[in-house]
């Protein structure tokens, strides 16, 4: 090394350090900036004309009515929760089951293949999923269930489930892989069957990771926009069965923000919905965190 270059070495170190620091700090900065921006866009209306009572309890969402504008989001909130819940009801057993299969039962060759397929599934853009819902699932549901329309809560939930399963599988499989092999040896040597080993040893030992997998799956379902917009039928009402169309909070923002005049009440209410979504995912994450820590301490 020449003397000149050696001279530059500390400077290089310093630059790299600064750069990494900048990356870290800016990530935090952007998250806060986004939150503040979203909140500011809705703040005016939030503090003056916003009727929280109506927003949370009424199903009457008439943002563009000429005579009587109403912003009741109850149906949208129900829509989001019902679709997400049904999606998780389908995705969690499948996802965790697949994770257990891949990590414990699968011959190594098949394992590699399956993991590639799952990564491919995770990489499919959501608009493509929405398209599948709109075309294939739509006609399938009409034919199988004799439903009047195939674009409904069930369709949306299946699409969401298909989108979250890859996440649950890959994170769940990581969690199971992280369970030390010595636990398996101990269980096998004590005479466990495969299933006893899975239910009594592996799942409890990996529960934090598995819970994280499920939570990320839920997060994906609650936050997803494009696919549910295309697959759920987009009708504002409280569903009485899984074959009825619904509309979600996210789909409402996506569909209406473009047409709402900037800074109008409608525009601001959509931002308030954004804040609500923010809060929901935040609460889910915090809850997950507490559950994980609570279990960890036990």
């Amino acid at each position: 090394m020449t003397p000149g270059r050696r001279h530059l070495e500390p400077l290089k170190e310093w630059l790299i350090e600064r750069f990494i620091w900048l990356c870290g700090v800016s990530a935090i900065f952007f998250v806060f900036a986004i939150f503040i921006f979203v909140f500011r866009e809705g703040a005016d209306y939030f503090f003056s004309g916003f009727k929280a009572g109506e927003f949370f309890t009424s199903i009457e969402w008439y943002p563009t009515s000429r005579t009587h504008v109403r912003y009741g989001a109850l149906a949208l909130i129900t829509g989001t929760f019902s679709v997400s819940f049904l999606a998780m009801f389908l995705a969690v057993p499948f996802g965790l089951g697949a994770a257990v299969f891949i990590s414990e039962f699968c011959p190594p060759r098949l394992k590699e293949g399956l993991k590639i397929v799952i990564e491919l599934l995770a990489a499919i853009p959501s608009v493509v999923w929405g398209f599948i819902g709109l075309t294939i699932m739509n006609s399938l549901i009409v034919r199988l269930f004799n439903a009047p329309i195939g674009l409904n809560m069930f369709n949306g939930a299946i699409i969401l489930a298909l989108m979250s399963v890859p996440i649950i599988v890959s994170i769940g499989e990581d969690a199971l892989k992280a369970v030390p092999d010595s636990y398996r040896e101990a269980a096998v040597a004590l005479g466990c069957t495969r299933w006893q080993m899975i239910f009594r040893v592996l799942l409890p030992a990996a529960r934090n990771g598995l819970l994280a997998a499920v939570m990320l799956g839920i997060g994906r379902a609650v936050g997803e926009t494009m696919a549910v917009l295309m697959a759920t039928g987009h009708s504002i009402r409280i569903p009485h069965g899984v074959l009825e169309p619904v509309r979600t909070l996210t789909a409402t923002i996506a569909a209406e923000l473009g047409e709402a005049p900037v800074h109008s009440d409608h525009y601001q209410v959509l931002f308030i919905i954004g804040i609500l979504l923010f809060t929901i995912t935040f609460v889910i994450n915090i809850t997950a965190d507490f559950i994980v820590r609570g279990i960890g301490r036990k």
Partner: protein
Amino acid sequence: MSDLAYSIVTRDLSLWYGEFQALRSVSFKARNGLITALIGPSGCGKTTLLRCFNRVNERYGNVTTTGEIRLLGKNIYDEDVSLIELRKSVGMVFQRPNPLPLTVYENIVFGLHIHSPARLNASALDEAVEQALTDVGLWMDLKDKQKSKATSLSLDQQQKLCIARLLPLKPEIILMDEPCSALDVEATRQVEELMLELAGRYTIIIVTHNMAQAKRVSHECAFMLMGELIEHSRTEDLFIRPLDKRTAEYIEGRFG
């Protein structure tokens, strides 16, 4: 029926990991109720032989075995042998203590739970736990800690717990793979004492690298080299008058 004096009898046992032959025609006998030590240099196949006796070697996909293994007179490769029953009667203690990530209490009743289809009554379980902990000399230390995580105990307590959790299943044979290699001198002494107390009730096979340990705890001793069983006799005889030159060289510390 001379075999009844022996808990374990193998005949021409050979084992391959893929292409690699780890056991070569091993014919080994372990006397009922005694402690038999397996010694030999690293990689000679001690662990492999031990893991044949409860068939946990089969966890690895690439293992082929030929020959015969009889435990308590029964060929363990017979069609009608249940692996679950086999592993119930043959307990195993590992090199690194591996209690399950459950409480002390749950670790000890684990075996009972998996082997009995019905729900067990709580006082019988409590009794089994007390008995097992007493047998391994942990009752005084752990009677108030039964609800704490087994993985938070000290290493020697963990290893004794790993022995204790076998006892409620009333095994005939206990296999130990270098059970003291993660423990300090004092804990090693305690585990050795424990083994001597358990001998008689159980047939114990212990793999060890430590020849002083083999001398202290074992009644019989078997020397292995490169997958072969070279010599097997009473421990005093093996250490004082080894018959094979290679055994003599090994116990004198010339290789290994």
